[in-house]
Each structure stands twice: as C-alpha cells, then as structure tokens.
C-alpha cells in the first residue's frame, strides 16, 4: 500500500483554486483515512462527517461563485476533546462527560470555522488533559503511529497522532505543562504552545486556568503559522486574553535567523537525559549555529524546582476547577439518597484514577494549615522560575533545549508510578510556569527510529521568533538532523 498523499495548508488551497479537488472530496478522503486507521490508533473519539461536509460545501459554494477563499479554506482539522464544539460531543476523555454536547463553540474553534477549516472530529487525550502518555483516557490509549507499541505522549496524544498519521492536516491541542510539545516530540510533528493569553481559553474545559493554553499541531512550520494566525488574538470572553496585536506569523516566520542569539541552558542536559536524545538535540543546535545563530551558554538555576512547583499549582487549580462536576448541571449523575451522597457517587463513578489523584493532591495543598507550606511557597518559586526566563532573555533571543528526556516509551511502561510520570515533564513545565511560548520541532530520530523533539522558548508574545527559528531549521533539513 502506498502512503497516502500528504496535504498542507498551501497545497489544499492550490488544489481547490485549480479545481483539482473539491473541499467535499478532500473531506471524504480524510474521513476515509480516519475510518481505515482509527481502529488501530484510537486517535479520534468522535468523527464529525456532518459538520465537515457542511463546512466543505460552504467552501465549494464560494469557489463556484468565484469568491475569495478564507485563509484555511477546506483544510481538514482535528480538535482535542477538551475544547468545546457546538452540537458535537465533548468528553474530555472522561466518563463524566460521556454524553456532554456543548451549546457553543470555543473561540478558537469559532475562528477556525470562520477561516474556512473543515472539522473532522474530536481527538482522544488524557482525561481532562491530565497525563503525559494518553493512557489516562476513559476510552483507551492512543497508539503512536510511528511505533504502535509505544505511547503518543500526552495529554494531546490523539491530536499529535492524527497529524503524524496523515489523518488531519493540522490539529488543536492544549498545553498546561507540556501537553502539546511532548506529544509533538514523541510523534515527530511540530507543536506550539503560545504565550499565556495569546489564544483565548473561552470554551476550553478548564484544568489549571493560570497554565492552560490552546495551540496548533502540524507537520510543518508554515501550517503551524497559518493556524496560529487564525486562532490568536484578544477575546472579550476571556478576561486573561491579551490585547496585544497579532503579527502575520506566516510572513514573520520567513525572516532570516542570522545573528539571533540562542541560549543553551546546561541545566537541561544533565542526568536523566537519554543519550540518543541528547545527541540529536546537540546536532540540532549545531545546525542552528551553522545558519548564523550565536550559541550562548546559560544558567537557569531554578529549573530543578519546576516540577515540584508545577504539580502543587496545577493540582490546586484542578481541584478547584473540577469541583463543578457534581452531577447537577451537566454530565454524569450517579444517584444518592442525599445531595452530598449524589455528589460523592457521581465523582467516584465519573473520574478516573489520575484525575482523582490530582484532585486529592490539590485539595490537600489548599487545605487549612497546609496552604502556606505548599501553595504559597510554590507561587513564590513560580516567580523565581519566571525570573530565570526574564534574566535569560536579557542575553538571548530564544532558548533551545530537548523537549522531553526520552523518546516515546512503551505502553504501560510508566503508568504504575505517577511520580516517575510527572518527572518526565522536567523540560516543559518551566516555560509553562513562566507563561512564555514554546515550540517542539522534529529533530531527527534515535537509532531505534523514534522521533526526537527540540524545544525552543522565546519571550512573551514572541511566537514569531519561535516560528522563524523553527522554519529556518526545517528548511535546513533539521527534521532529519
């Protein structure tokens, strides 16, 4: 069987304009791919042919009338199942929301819709986006299309796998502590976490509100830039969304990188980093240097404290956000004799074990007598970690690190030890806490053929710098470094 043709935002546009294919035919092609591959990968929880064909027909009608095409006309896109879609089941990979149908679209979804995208369906993830392997889904794990016995990463594992397997041109994921970047790295695609406040969270089911971000997955940087340009920007419905102008990321990403200063923090290359990953990321950095970037060694002294601070803050916020699942207004209800019994039965039956663990931890660190020792201390450490980034960006334009300490691991390899799983977020949570943007770019493969990701961080609202570096790296053959 020959590999299915790979489509990009640009090639979809060209094919539509020259009438080589209609938007409906293209939607049918992708829905067919999903039908064939999804039983094996489990990347999609819900497929949405009705909405996809309605959107495609709208584009075909515009073409027939000779109207100008919107920026993502006909582009088949998958959406992580923690992002609300009007009339389309949104489960958060939880039994709690098995039959939940949102009455509205998230702002990011609405903007994609307005830009002419075609929604193929909702992708599997760790329950309520809590996890790094996609094994915490109530609907079964996703398999990594590169190596089926391995995890795709998490929590946005379904979105990463869908793009890597050619089941969608691009996908939306969400990133709280690494949930876009780490699965991008494991599946060999590009994944971008925007600055906190860059993309509206309206309609994103909340996990940790001071850390959650929506961002794109794509096979290439031009596509990631095109999707980000559409979803970024201020939204009156999200009070944490920033009124900072959105540049044309596609144009910005084509600017030269010569003379850019790239910081390499030695703290990110120490014990625990897989030697194959280290070798590839070092080679990636050398390639950036050969393109005229200046490598500058950095110290980021609080890196080692990021996991501890992150898991206190993220679980505290989660315990508060997930209090809303009480069986009253939507989602699952398990009956009980009293209101309190009904709450308890509903939450016992609706949440999986990782979600319960995080609610327990978060409730504990916020509880009377422990608040100062845990939560408040973690908030202070968060300031120190943010300061590390502020100091670094006085000296450099971007910071380059590995995305994850290992390539994709085997299913069930780590799932019995939650602390070990948390520790694997070591390189991603730092930027999450600081609120800066980060991208994971494919950076070669290990000897066993597993993808490696190189992570780049930039100052707040400097996504353009990330995309510039990533695009130059891609053009210079960095994906196969």
């Amino acid at each position, binding site marked *: 069987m020959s590999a299915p043709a790979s489509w990009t935002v640009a090639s979809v546009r060209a094919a539509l304009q020259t009438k080589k294919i209609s938007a409906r035919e293209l939607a049918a092609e992708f829905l067919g791919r999903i039908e064939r591959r999804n039983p094996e990968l489990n990347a999609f929880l819900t497929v949405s042919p009705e909405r996809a064909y309605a959107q495609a027909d709208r584009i075909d009608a515009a073409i027939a009338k000779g109207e100008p095409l919107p920026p993502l006309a006909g582009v088949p896109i998958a959406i992580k199942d923690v992002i609300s879609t009007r009339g389309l089941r949104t489960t958060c990979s939880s039994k709690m929301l098995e039959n*939940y*149908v949102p*009455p*509205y679209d998230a702002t990011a979804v609405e903007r994609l819709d307005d830009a002419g995208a075609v929604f193929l369906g909702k992708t599997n993830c760790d329950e309520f986006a809590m996890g790094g392997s996609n094994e915490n889904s109530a609907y079964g794990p996703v398999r990594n299309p590169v190596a089926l016995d391995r995890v795709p990463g998490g929590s946005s594992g379904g979105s990463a796998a869908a793009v890597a397997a050619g089941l969608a041109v691009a996908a939306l994921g969400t990133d709280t502590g690494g949930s876009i970047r780490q699965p991008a790295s494991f599946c060999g695609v590009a994944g971008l976490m925007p600055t*906190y*406040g860059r993309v509206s969270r309206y309609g994103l089911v909340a996990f940790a509100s001071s850390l959650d971000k929506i961002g794109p997955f794509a096979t290439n940087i031009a596509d990631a830039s095109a999707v980000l340009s559409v979803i970024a920007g*201020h939204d*009156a419905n999200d*009070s*944490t*969304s*920033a*009124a*900072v102008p959105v540049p044309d990321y596609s144009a910005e990403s084509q600017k030269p990188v010569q003379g850019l200063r790239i910081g390499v923090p030695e703290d990110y290359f120490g014990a625990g980093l897989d030697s194959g990953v280290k070798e590839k990321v070092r080679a990636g950095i050398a390639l950036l240097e050969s393109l005229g970037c200046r490598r500058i060694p950095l110290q980021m002294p*609080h890196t*080692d*404290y990021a996991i*501890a*601070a992150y*898991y*206190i803050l993220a679980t505290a916020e989660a315990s508060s956000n997930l*209090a809303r699942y*009480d069986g*009253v*207004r939507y*989602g699952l*209800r398990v*009956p*009980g004799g*009293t*209101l309190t019994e*009904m709450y*308890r*039965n509903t*939450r*016992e039956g609706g*949440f999986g*074990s990782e979600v*319960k*663990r995080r609610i*327990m*931890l978060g*409730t*504990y660190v916020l*509880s009377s007598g422990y608040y100062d020792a*845990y939560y408040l*201390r*973690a*908030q*202070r*450490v*968060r*300031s*120190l970690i943010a300061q590390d980034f*502020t100091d670094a960006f006085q000296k450099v334009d971007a910071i380059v690190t590995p995305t994850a300490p290992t390539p994709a691991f085997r299913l069930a390899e780590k799932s019995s030890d*939650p*602390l070990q799983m*948390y520790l694997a977020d070591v390189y991603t949570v730092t930027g999450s806490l600081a609120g800066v943007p980060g991208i994971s770019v494919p950076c070669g493969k290990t000897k066993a053929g597993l993808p490696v990701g190189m992570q780049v961080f930039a100052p*707040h*609202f400097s996504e353009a710098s990330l995309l510039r570096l990533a695009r130059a790296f891609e053009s210079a053959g960095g994906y196969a470094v």
Partner: protein
Amino acid sequence: MKISREDVVRVAELAHLGLSPAEVELYRGQLDAILTYVDKLKELDTASVEPMAQVLHIATSESGAQQHPELRDDVSQPCNVAGPVLAGAPEAQAPFFRVPKVIDR
C-alpha cells in the same frame, strides 16, 4: 510519613470523592511519595519573593501593552442558552435543575 490514612479520608471528604478502602491505601502511598518529593522547594529561601499571582500582568507590562486591557465594559448581553443547557442536564424541570431533597422537615 507525610500523609496518613486519616488525612486521605479527610481530603476525600473535602473533595466529595468516594474512595474504596483499596483506593485510600493506594493514594496514601502515592501522595506520600509526591509530597516528599515536593518538599525540595524548602531548599529555596523564598521569604522575600513575591508570589506569582498573575501571569498576564507580567507579560503585558514587559511587552509595553496597556495595563488591564482585559477589563471590558460591564454590559449585559442576550444569552439564550437556557434551553440547550437544561437539555444537557441529568435531571431538569424547566427552568430548574432537579437535585435530591436538601431540606428535611
């Protein structure tokens, strides 16, 4: 030991989580390991460090953008979603959600 069985039961009660005895034991061990690990934050002297309560505040002041642009005018908007919202409720009797009896007489 950072956390006892009794602590786990108390926290589960606060969080309205029903837990089986086996889950209580499992979570006690796992939470203990995690709480022991996060104690490493005590290595840092944070007494004079401001807690980071706002992400965007720092971000926008760095980029030179206007302070608090996020505050919009407080104007009421039509919001005709009561129908679909109640349709998604486990038990509804418009315009109310139904729950088990709260007040005993």
